[in-house]
C-alpha cells in the first residue's frame, strides 16, 4: 500500500470554554491513501463533520479548537502538521492541497456572484493564472463535472441552476486546483436519489482519474456500501471500528456497527416475502412478526381523478396568472389494514396528494371516497367529523408539535375537539396512548423541546391515534430521523397496523423503506402516478421507465452490488407550472397484471 496522504493521529476537538466545554471529537486516528475513498460514517452528534472541518482548520470558525493530536498532510515539499500550521500555510493548503464539498448545494454558492467568479478566484489565487487562463480552466472544469452548456453556466448566477447542477459546480470548485485530498461532507444528503447517484458516480470517476484521496462523510450506510474502499465508524466522538468496506458489512465487530447495519433497510431484501415485516433490531429479542396479509381486502379509501392546482399570482392586484399542476388525475385504492406508499422525488406531488385527501389543500376536482363518503363533498362541519377517521403525521418532528403546549394537552386535543372524553377519562386515555407508543408516562407533563426527534415523532403518532382513525397519512414521517430511530418508528407503525387494523398512506422518497412497509406502491412523477401495483410487482417487475430509473439510482446497502461503474445522467424533471389555458390529458393506464397498472405515455 502506498504511503497515506493524510494521517490523523489522536485528534481531539473541543467546543466552548471552562465548565461549558464539550468534547466533540475525543481520540480519532486514521489515514487516507491516494486513490482511496475512506467513508466516515455515524449518526448525528458522532463528530464526523467536526473531524473533517478540523482537517481544513475550519472548525475554529465555528468556535471549536483542536486541543490535541497531529494531522499530518504529505505535500510535495514535505509533511505538514495541519494542527500546528499557521494561517498563511493553511490558506495555501485550503483549496489547493485539500478541496472540500459541503452538504447544502442550495446555500454553498454565493448568490450574488457569477459561477465564473466563484470558480476562478481560487485558481487565480493558488495558481496565479491570468483572468483568461482561469476562465479557460473553469470551462474545462465544468466540462469535467459534465454540466450541460458549460459556456452559458459561467455567466449565470447560482439561483439559475438546479440543485444537482449546483452540487456539480461546488465539486468543480473543490477540484479546481487538482487537490490531493477531497473532503466530501454529506454531499448527497440534500439531493434526490437520481441526482445522488449522478454525484456519487462523478466523485468516484474523478477519484479514479486523478488518483485523489477522498474522505467521504455520511450517515447513510447504503451510500457507504456504494462508494467506500475503507470505512471508519464513529460514535459520540470516537472511532468504534475501522476496516475495508466488505469486512465492515459482512462481519461487523463493534456492537454499534452491528446495530447500525441491522437498522438499515436494504433494497431487495423483501424479495419473495408476502407481507411487510418489521426490522430485526439489535437488543430487541422479539422475533419480527410479519404482517399477515388480509384474506379478503376491503377498500377503505378510493381516490378517483384527484387533481390539485396551486395558483401562481402576480402583478399589483395579485392576479391569478398561472397554475402549478401539483396533482394531476391521480386514482388509487387503499384497502383496510394495508399500507399504500406514494413514492417519488421532490416536487412530484406526493405530499400535495396526501394533503388533498385530508383537504388541508383544496383539490380542483376528483373524488376521495372514505368509507363510502366523499371527502370533497362535505360541508365544513361534516368534513370536521369525517377527519376523525383520517389523521396525519408530518415529516419535521420539531415543527409538528406546538412548542408552548404540554405533550399531554397536544395528545388530548383531538379527543377534546370531538368531545370524546373529559376529566379523568381523558387523562387515562392520553396515558394509555403514551403507553401504546412506548413513551414513559413521566413525559406527559413535558414540553416538546425536552424530547429527541424520535420521541417527538412518537408523540405525533399518539396524537394521530387518539381519535381511533381508520387511515393515517404519514408524510415522510421517518425521513428526518437517524437510521436507528427510523427503524424503531417504522417497527412501531407496523406493530400498530397489525394490532389495530390501521391503514397507512405512506408518503416517502426512500425506496428501501417503502419496500419494507408497503402492501402496494404507487410511483409518482410530475403529479401523476406512473406505475401502481402490489409491492412485489413494482420492485421485481418494474414496467415504467421512471420506476426503473428510480430503482437503478437507489444505492443498496451491500458493497457486493455496486452501481457506480459508469457515469450516470438522468433526464431532469420539467416544471409543473403552466399557464391558465393549459389542459392536460387524462391519465390512461395499461394493465400489466391484475392490479399492476402502468401509465400510457403521450396519452
Amino acid at each position, binding site marked *: 500500500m502506498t504511503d497515506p496522504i493524510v494521517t490523523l493521529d489522536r485528534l481531539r476537538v473541543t467546543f466552548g470554554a471552562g465548565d461549558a466545554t464539550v468534547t466533540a471529537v475525543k481520540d480519532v486516528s486514521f489515514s487516507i491513501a491516494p486513490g482511496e475513498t475512506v467513508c466516515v460514517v455515524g449518526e448525528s452528534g458522532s463528530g464526523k463533520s467536526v473531524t473533517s472541518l478540523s482537517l*481544513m482548520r*475550519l472548525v475554529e*470558525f465555528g468556535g471549536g479548537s483542536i486541543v490535541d493530536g497531529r494531522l499530518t498532510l504529505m505535500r510535495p515539499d514535505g509533511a505538514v502538521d495541519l494542527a500546528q500550521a499557521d494561517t498563511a500555510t*493553511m*490558506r*495555501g*493548503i*485550503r*483549496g*489547493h492541497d*485539500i*478541496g*472540500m464539498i*459541503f*452538504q*447544502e448545494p442550495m*446555500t*454553498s*454558492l*454565493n*448568490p*450574488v*456572484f457569477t459561477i465564473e467568479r466563484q470558480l476562478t*478566484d*481560487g485558481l487565480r*489565487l*493558488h495558481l496565479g493564472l491570468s483572468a483568461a487562463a482561469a476562465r479557460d480552466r473553469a470551462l474545462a472544469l465544468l466540462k469535467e463535472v459534465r454540466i450541460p452548456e458549460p459556456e452559458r453556466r459561467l455567466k449565470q*448566477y447560482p*439561483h439559475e441552476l438546479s440543485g444537482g447542477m449546483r452540487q456539480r459546480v*461546488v465539486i468543480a*470548485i*473543490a477540484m*479546481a486546483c487538482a487537490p490531493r485530498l477531497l473532503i466530501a461532507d454529506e454531499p448527497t444528503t440534500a439531493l434526490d436519489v437520481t441526482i445522488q447517484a449522478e454525484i456519487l458516480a462523478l466523485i468516484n470517476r474523478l477519484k479514479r482519474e486523478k488518483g485523489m484521496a477522498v474522505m467521504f462523510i455520511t450517515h447513510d450506510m447504503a451510500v457507504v456500501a456504494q462508494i467506500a474502499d475503507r470505512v471508519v465508524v464513529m460514535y459520540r466522538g470516537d472511532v468504534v471500528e475501522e476496516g475495508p468496506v466488505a469486512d465492515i458489512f459482512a462481519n461487523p465487530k463493534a456492537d454499534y456497527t452491528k446495530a447500525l447495519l441491522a437498522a438499515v433497510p436494504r433494497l431487495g431484501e423483501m424479495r419473495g416475502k408476502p407481507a411487510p415485516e418489521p426490522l430485526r433490531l439489535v437488543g430487541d429479542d422479539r422475533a419480527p412478526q410479519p404482517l399477515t396479509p388480509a384474506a379478503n381486502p376491503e377498500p377503505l379509501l378510493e381516490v378517483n381523478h384527484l387533481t390539485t392546482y396551486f395558483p401562481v399570482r*402576480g*402583478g*399589483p392586484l395579485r392576479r391569478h396568472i398561472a397554475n402549478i399542476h401539483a396533482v394531476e388525475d391521480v386514482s388509487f385504492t387503499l384497502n383496510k389494514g394495508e399500507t399504500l406508499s406514494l413514492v417519488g422525488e421532490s416536487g412530484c406531488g406526493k405530499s400535495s396528494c396526501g394533503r388533498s385527501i385530508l383537504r388541508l389543500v383544496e383539490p380542483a376536482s376528483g373524488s376521495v371516497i372514505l368509507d363510502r363518503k366523499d371527502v370533497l363533498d362535505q360541508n365544513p362541519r361534516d368534513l370536521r367529523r369525517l377527519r376523525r377517521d383520517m389523521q396525519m403525521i408530518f415529516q419535521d418532528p420539531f415543527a409538528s408539535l406546538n412548542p408552548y403546549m404540554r405533550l399531554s394537552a397536544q395528545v388530548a386535543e383531538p379527543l377534546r375537539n370531538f368531545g370524546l372524553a373529559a376529566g379523568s377519562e381523558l387523562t387515562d386515555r392520553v396515558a394509555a396512548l403514551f403507553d401504546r407508543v412506548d413513551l414513559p408516562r413521566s413525559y406527559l407533563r413535558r414540553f416538546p423541546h425536552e424530547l429527541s426527534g424520535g420521541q417527538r415523532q412518537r408523540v405525533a403518532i399518539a396524537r394521530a391515534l387518539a381519535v381511533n382513525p381508520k387511515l393515517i397519512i404519514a408524510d415522510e414521517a421517518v425521513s428526518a430521523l437517524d437510521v436507528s430511530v427510523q427503524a424503531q418508528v417504522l417497527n412501531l407503525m407496523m406493530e400498530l397496523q397489525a394490532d389495530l387494523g390501521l391503514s397507512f398512506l405512506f408518503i416517502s422518497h426512500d425506496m428501501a423503506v417503502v419496500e419494507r412497509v408497503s402492501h402496494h406502491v404507487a410511483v409518482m412523477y410530475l403529479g401523476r402516478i406512473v406505475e401502481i401495483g402490489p409491492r412485489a410487482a413494482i420492485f421485481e417487475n418494474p414496467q415504467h421507465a421512471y420506476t426503473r430509473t428510480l430503482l437503478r439510482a437507489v444505492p443498496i446497502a451491500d458493497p457486493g452490488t455496486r452501481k457506480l461503474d459508469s457515469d450516470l445522467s438522468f433526464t431532469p424533471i420539467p416544471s409543473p407550472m403552466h399557464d391558465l389555458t393549459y389542459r392536460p390529458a387524462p391519465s390512461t393506464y395499461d394493465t400489466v397484471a391484475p392490479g399492476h397498472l402502468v401509465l400510457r405515455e403521450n396519452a
Partner: protein
Amino acid sequence: MAYLINRLLSVALTLFLISVITFAVTNILPGDVAMMIMGTQSNPEALAGLRESLGLNDPQIVQYGRWIGGILTGDWGTSLVFKEPIGPLIAQKVTASALIVVMSMTIALVCAIPLGVWAAVHRDRWQDGTASTAALIGVSLPDFFWGIMLILLFARGLGWLPSSGFVHPADDFTLAVRHAFLPSLALGLGLMAHLTRMTRATMTGILGQEFIRVARAKGLSERTVVWRYGLANAIGPVLTVAGLQVGYLFGSIIVVESLFNYTGMGWLTYQALLNRDIPLIQGSVFVIAAVVMLANLAVDLLYTLIDPRIRLA
C-alpha cells in the same frame, strides 16, 4: 417591461391611498378652515357665508375630489399662515430638507457599514461589545438631545459651526453645508447607531452561511471572505433598511429643523401644525408621505441591481 408597468400601477394606487389618508386625517378636525381664516370671535353669518363659498358644506367626497383635483392640476391652494401659494412654498422647502436628509444618510451609511461588519467579525468579543454598546446607546438618545448636545459643543462651546438658520446651496454652497452640518449630524448619529446594529445582525447571519465556509475552503483570505463574499450579500438588506429609515428621517426633521431653525420641510410642517393651517398641513403631509414611498421604491429598484435573484422577472 411588464414588471415596470406593474410597478407604476402599484405606485399610482399607493399615491391615491396616501392622498385619501391625508385628507381623512386632516378632516377629522373639530374646527374648520373658515374659522381659521376669520377667527373664533367672528360673525356667525359671515362664517356661514365663507363656509358656503369655500365649499365646506359639500359632502366629504366632493371636497376630496376638489382637493385632489387641485393637487393634480398644480393648484395646491394658499397657506393661511404664509399667505403664499402652497405648491412653490413646498417645492422650495423640500430641497432644503433633501440636503440634510442626504447628508445624514451618507454620514450614517459611511460609518455604520464598516462598524457593523467589524462588530460581526469579532462577534462576542470586546470589539463587538464596544461597538454594540455604543450603538445601543446611540439608538436610545432622542434626536433633539443629540441636537442640543451638538449645539452646546460645536456652536456654543467651540464655535466651529452655526447652530441656526438655512442658506440655499445655490447662493453659497460652502455656507449651506456648514449650516446643514449640525442638523445632519443630529439626524445621522441615531441613524448610524441603528444601521450599525442592522449591519451587524445581517453580517452575523451571513457569516454563518455555507457559502462563506466554501469561500474559506478555497483558501481565500479572511479579508476577501468578509469584505467581498460577505458584504456583497449584506449590502442589499442594509440598504433596504436604510431606505425604510427615510421615513424615520422625515419624521425627525420636524424636531431637528425646528431646533436648528433650519427652514425646510420639517420646519414648514411644524409651522402648519402649530397654526392649524389645514391646506398647508394637507399639502405637506401628502408630499412627505409621497417622498418616503418613492424613496422606498428607489431602494427596491436598486436592490434588483444588487441581487441577481430578483432581477426583473
